[in-house]
């Protein structure tokens, strides 16, 4: 940014003028466009300054929200198609207890239980398999293949087996999460250099010690990669499984029934909860990754 400090003020003034002009003379579409341009200009200015790493994305998000609200109000989009953010916020505030119950049922009981079991099973299997080169060469392609399959499709089968409760959702999550975690962990455990393994041998380290001090730490970046994929998959699995049968509580149940009643603000409130849960759990894993694999180049580069 080569501009002087005062120039951004001019931009904002210009934007405000254009905004007023557009509101008076042009249709709502042009108004939305002008708002977009003005906020984008502001973002350009912000991106050139300190603290942009946090401010720029926030500003972009706010821009989207304002545009959404503007478009819905000015174009008078029916609520059935797309509710405004303010309507969604109202629905969210009015139905907090319901949304909380859904959250507990789907995320805490279904997704979290399944995620824990699936990830533990995936990592444990990987540790067992990694000892044998033969099994590893056989399991990696098969696991990669399975990870690419539409495993969500097993949801109707598992709902048939485990009933409508949260257990079947946890089962779906286990199946979905298992292969990505397995494949990533196996790949990670193999990611040690011959020199490092030789060093462990000269120390007279037992296989367990080699695993504890060499293979597991160097596998961590890969494991976290798998865990991150797993968090998103877990939520998807738990919600989609509810479409095939569920008690009268749960986020998937809420979304499908409220869509049926065309109560779209409530649907979007549920989606907001899902998005928050997804982003938060992803953030938690990323935070844990930064703490545990601070030595890895991908983490160091950020500082």
């Amino acid at each position: 940014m080569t501009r002087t400090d005062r120039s951004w003020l001019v931009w904002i003034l210009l934007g405000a003028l254009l905004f007023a002009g557009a509101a008076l003379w042009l249709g709502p579409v042009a108004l939305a466009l002008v708002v977009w341009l003005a906020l984008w200009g502001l973002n350009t200015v912000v991106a050139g300054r300190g603290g942009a790493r946090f401010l720029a994305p926030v500003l972009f998000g706010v821009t989207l929200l304002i545009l959404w609200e503007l478009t819905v109000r000015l174009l008078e989009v029916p609520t059935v198609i797309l509710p405004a953010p303010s309507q969604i916020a109202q629905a969210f505030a009015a139905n907090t207890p319901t949304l909380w119950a859904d959250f507990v049922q789907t995320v805490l009981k279904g997704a979290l239980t399944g995620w824990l079991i699936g990830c533990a099973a995936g990592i444990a299997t990987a540790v067992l398999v990694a000892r044998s080169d033969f099994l590893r060469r056989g399991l990696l392609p098969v696991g990669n293949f399975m990870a690419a399959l539409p495993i969500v499709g097993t949801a109707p089968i598992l709902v048939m087996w485990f009933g409508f409760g949260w257990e079947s959702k946890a089962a779906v999550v286990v199946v979905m999460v298992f292969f990505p975690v397995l494949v990533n962990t196996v790949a990670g455990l193999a990611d040690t250099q011959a020199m490092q393994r030789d060093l462990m041998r000269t120390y007279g380290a037992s296989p367990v010690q080699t695993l504890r001090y060499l293979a597991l730490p160097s596998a961590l970046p890969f494991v976290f990669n798998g865990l991150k994929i797993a968090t998103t998959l877990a939520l998807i699995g738990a919600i989609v499984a509810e479409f095939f049968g569920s008690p009268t509580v749960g986020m998937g149940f809420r979304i499908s029934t409220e869509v049926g009643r065309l109560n779209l603000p409530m649907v979007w409130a549920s989606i907001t909860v899902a998005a928050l849960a997804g982003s938060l759990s992803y953030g938690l894993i990323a935070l844990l990754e930064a703490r545990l694999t601070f030595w890895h180049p991908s983490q160091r580069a950020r500082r």
Partner: protein
Amino acid sequence: MTDITAPGAAIGRTPLLFRIAHAAGPILAVVAGLIAFWYLACIPMNAAQSALEAERAGAELTTTAADRRTMSGLAVAFEHPTEAVAHAFVQERPRLPAPHQVMVELWDTTVGQDPTSRRSLVFHAGITLGPTLLGFAIGSGLGILLAIGIVHSRVMDLSVMPWAIASQTIPILAIAPMIIVVLNSVGVQGLIPKAIISAYLSFFPVTVGMVKGLRAPSQSDLDLMRTWNASALRTLVSLRLPSSLPYLFASLKIAIAAALVGAIIGELPTGAVRGLGARLLAGSYYGQTVQIWSALFGAAIVAAGLVALVTGIERLTLRRMGLAR
């Protein structure tokens, strides 16, 4: 591990057949193990039904149907081992169909049927393939454009990239039904809504892969372009795009598999009667487990075929560009 030879030293001399066996052997062993486990699992899973069928056939059992309802499948299988094994693999509606039952159903519904008939799985796969490919094309096109924008503009990098990542933590697949129903209520039907979901799912891997790929050229290569006074467009076309291709293909493989998942999920909510997802749904409504499993395997085969197709194009392209390994 204990070989004295240097890695790769013998590759030139190894016969082709031996190399194939070396690569395929472990895979076949693992697949065989999985199938064996599947057959074993069928016995306790289907035990209750097996015992019932044995009773109907006139066998005297020590337990009644009411007893068995309170027992687990494993317990029933141990109580009546012969009946459980004899009837486990031939049931009409098993809880877990045996692999050969699924294969027979798969064969009957693909080769045994006219591909244009509704009973044919090929027909349903074709219905699902349409939105998959359309969504894949839209999604990867958008992904590439977005990546080019992100690489060239610091503002976009800072403000859009975090949201592109955050958008993936939203369980989009879970709101797919809503998109379908809402678009349906506005009158948009058929291919487009499913393609939108496929596009959304496939755009992200492509964006991330392409951003990485477009930034792959080394600083000295970029400097060289600058000494030639190359414009940003020229650098993009002559340097960045060619060197991003390996990254692009890696992410295209993920994207096309994701697009198929999107198209299948997209078929669920409208009560569609055609497509692989519709077969899954119909199978789960009527308890036709064999049909569900065959639809699942059909989807798996389609996914494998699509990924293989992308891999083939990748090999061809990279070889012609001299980038092949």
